[in-house]
């Protein structure tokens, strides 16, 4: 399949991730949506690395994975901590930064 298809798939996954992040209230699912977005970008990087015959894309994807892993770990820990203190899983209720 060509570049068009890859781009479409990637865009679709990215938009699904975005939509998930915005409409869901469960922080875990929001996190998963972020993973979706990251993965869509990873996918694009990998395919284009293949199209362009350059490994830079893959290296980049690898880095993203590393960052994503770190992010997930920290993020989940934060969610855990918040839950421990507030006993509430609705992100809309967590608005301490309100101006």
């Amino acid at each position, binding site marked *: 399949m060509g570049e068009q298809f890859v781009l479409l798939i990637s865009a679709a996954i990215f*938009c699904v991730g975005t939509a998930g992040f915005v*409409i869901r209230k469960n922080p875990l699912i929001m996190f998963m949506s972020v*993973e979706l977005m990251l993965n869509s970008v990873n996918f694009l990087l990998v395919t284009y690395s*293949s199209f362009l015959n*350059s*490994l830079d894309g893959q290296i980049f994807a690898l880095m993203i994975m590393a960052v994503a892993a770190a992010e997930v*770990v920290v993020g989940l820990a934060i969610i855990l901590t918040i839950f421990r203190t507030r006993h509430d899983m609705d992100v809309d209720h967590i608005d*301490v930064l309100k101006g």
Partner: protein
Amino acid sequence: MLEIATVFDFTRDAVIFAVGVTAVLASLGVILCSSPIYSALYLIGHMICLALLFLLYNAEFLAVVQIIVYAGAVMILFLFIIALLGGKKEVQENSFHRSIAITFVFILLGELCLSATVGPTKQVQGEIPADLFGTAKAIGLELFSKHLVAFELASGLLLVAAVGVICLAKFSFAPLRRRVR
């Protein structure tokens, strides 16, 4: 590889198409399920699809990493947390916010698709031998020569993340109170 993109190969295209569509559907599953546990399972499916796609696009090493890191480590972590916090179903209401969000996401999708049709990108001649492309060796060579600093930084990042998590999880916090003006 260049030939792969140009030579017509029906079987491979069909597989890519099928796996790609499955990945999209799985991702839809992630966000539409009301229970986090199902979402997590759909996400695992999505990850595997992507790993397959990686394989199909000559990225064996990344495919493996995808399975191990994402579908393995990360998702297991998710499942643990879900198990810990309880997979409560959330109540979805059709709010103004929701409709706006969906509208904008669709516009975004449209725009992305439009930008995908902008035209052929300029091709760059790679310098890696074809037979080595995407293998762990190639990645390794690349990673430990050209991107050494980034690699080390990534390792530092992971270390920091590990320390941070320990800090976050170990100490208990007083309940947060609303800021008083």
